[in-house]
């Protein structure tokens, strides 16, 4: 087994190779504005570091968010297309699950929160590092204060809003290494991973920019 994992749902552009037992090579760069430019070179670097090529990969693992859409799509489109070209399965993993796994919290409950911008966070509750107990959602920190009160919190979203998350800690962003390890563990246990479809959690802004193609109702 050789899994290629990637995630672009947080400011990190992160790639890892996992052979079923351990992470073979990994790369993480934090640059929220350059996911599109950084991802492919990172894949190339990680494969070179492991001394292998993409055709040796037996499965692709991708973070499905939630995350800011433009960046999120870079990872999903890349994973989808790798799957098509290589004829290997593409597995989706919730990005928040990857963060929870990396946080290595044995005794729950705790919260994972990432930055959703617009003064909101993407978040979910966990009973331990491998077990999410709520669906991921997007909210203003103040609106969920009651639901997360007294709980430790992991991720950049928690660190950004100390009033709601006084017990915030790292890691800030997801790592593909954690995502790959979690996926490998679940696949080994016979758990079926979801198809890689994005978790947007918000409806698109219905904003039509000026001077673009005009489309009127029929």
């Amino acid at each position, binding site marked *: 087994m050789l899994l290629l994992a990637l995630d672009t749902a947080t400011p990190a552009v992160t790639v890892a190779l996992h052979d079923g037992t351990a992470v073979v090579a990994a790369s993480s760069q934090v640059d929220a504005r*350059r996911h*599109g*430019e*950084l*991802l*492919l*070179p990172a*894949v*190339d670097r990680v494969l070179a570091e492991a001394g292998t090529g*993409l055709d040796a990969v037996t499965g692709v693992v991708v973070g499905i968010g939630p995350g800011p*859409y*433009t960046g999120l*799509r*870079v990872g*999903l*489109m*890349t*994973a*989808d*297309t*790798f*799957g*098509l*070209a*290589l004829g290997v399965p593409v597995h989706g993993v919730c990005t928040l699950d990857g963060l929870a796994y990396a946080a290595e919290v044995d005794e729950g409950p705790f919260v994972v929160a990432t930055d959703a911008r617009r003064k909101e966070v993407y978040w979910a509750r966990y009973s331990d590092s491998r077990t999410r107990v709520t669906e991921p959602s997007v909210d203003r920190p103040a609106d969920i204060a009651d639901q997360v009160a007294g709980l430790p919190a992991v991720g950049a979203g928690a660190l950004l809003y100390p009033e709601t998350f006084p017990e915030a800690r790292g890691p800030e962003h997801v790592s593909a290494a954690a995502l790959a390890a979690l996926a490998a563990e679940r696949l080994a246990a016979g758990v079926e991973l979801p198809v890689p479809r*994005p978790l*947007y959690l918000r409806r*698109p*802004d*219905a*904003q*039509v*920019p*000026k*001077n*673009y*193609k*005009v*489309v*009127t*109702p*029929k």
Partner: protein
Amino acid sequence: MADSKDVPLVLGIETSCDETGVGIVAGTTLLADAIASSVDEHARFGGVVPEVASRAHLEAMVPTIERALKEAGVSARDLDGIAVTAGPGLAGALLVGVSAAKAYAYALGKPLYGVNHLASHICVDQLEHGPLPEPTMALLVSGGHSSLLLSSDITSDVRPMGATIDDAAGEAFDKIARVLNLGFPGGPVIDRYAKEGDPRAIAFPRGLTGPRDPAYDFSFSGLKTSVARWIEAKRAAGEEVPVRDVAASFQEAVVDVLTRKAVRACKDEGVDHLMIGGGVAANTRLRALAQERCEAAGIRLRVPRPKLCTDNGAMVAALGAEMVARNRAPSDWELSADSSLPVTDPHVPGHGHSHGHSHSHDHVHEVSKGNLYT
């Protein structure tokens, strides 16, 4: 150019607006032109919503690539390159196509060519009428752009002669159709009504045709307002609006200016070929008047079939194949989407490669930046 047995087999991806296009060509021969459109999802918003378009591109991409390969009857392994629209267009929409093209090229071990959307609109004519004459004058008219471009080599030299300073020509058609309650899209329905009307019934203004106006730029905003006012005045007076005559007279004003300026540019530059592309190139009166005026001026007119005039993947593949044939430098894996890629950059060569022309990225645009799209 490679010999006929060895023409480049290239797959092209287009996602600059609301069409997910994947085309496959062998040199100047069209093998597949697969399209998925999100146009219906945008209709209730009255225009293309970028986030809606981007979401649709992500969903449609893999199935559309598969459809194109099947249609062409080729294996991805046999491709000589992957081309993709790097810009101009909607940033988020472009990024989906660029991500797919990079991943596909990388996984297949093929060179990647990030190309310019406008140059692709010109190059697509090679699939219809064979190699482009050099130089070629091109009139690109659609719902998103109205430009006059001169190219001596579509892979390295595209020079903007003029562009609209306000609305695109296609936009004007849509808006007038709306004022006349003719529905959407405006182009075909105006064309239809105009056939039964008198193009000389109403003297609508010809924008930017005065002696001191820029020779090759266009303006359709004044015309649009003038037509709308004329219709409203009729309605206010309780008179019936002569829809056919209005459609014919409005359409005549648009195509008169477009063809007059295009022919003049050809004459001024000593170019004996005119290419017309973009969705508005489907307009029958534009084709007829262009033919008439080109013949009178000794200019050969080339207009691709309507499906190749609107946004599609085949046009991207056509330009990609030309890049391969002319040994242009492929793009890097760092290739990014550039929503305002200058029209003067036919492609985005990688760093550290030598290539035929300078491509200082100074973002010198056409006159109207807002109308570079679609």
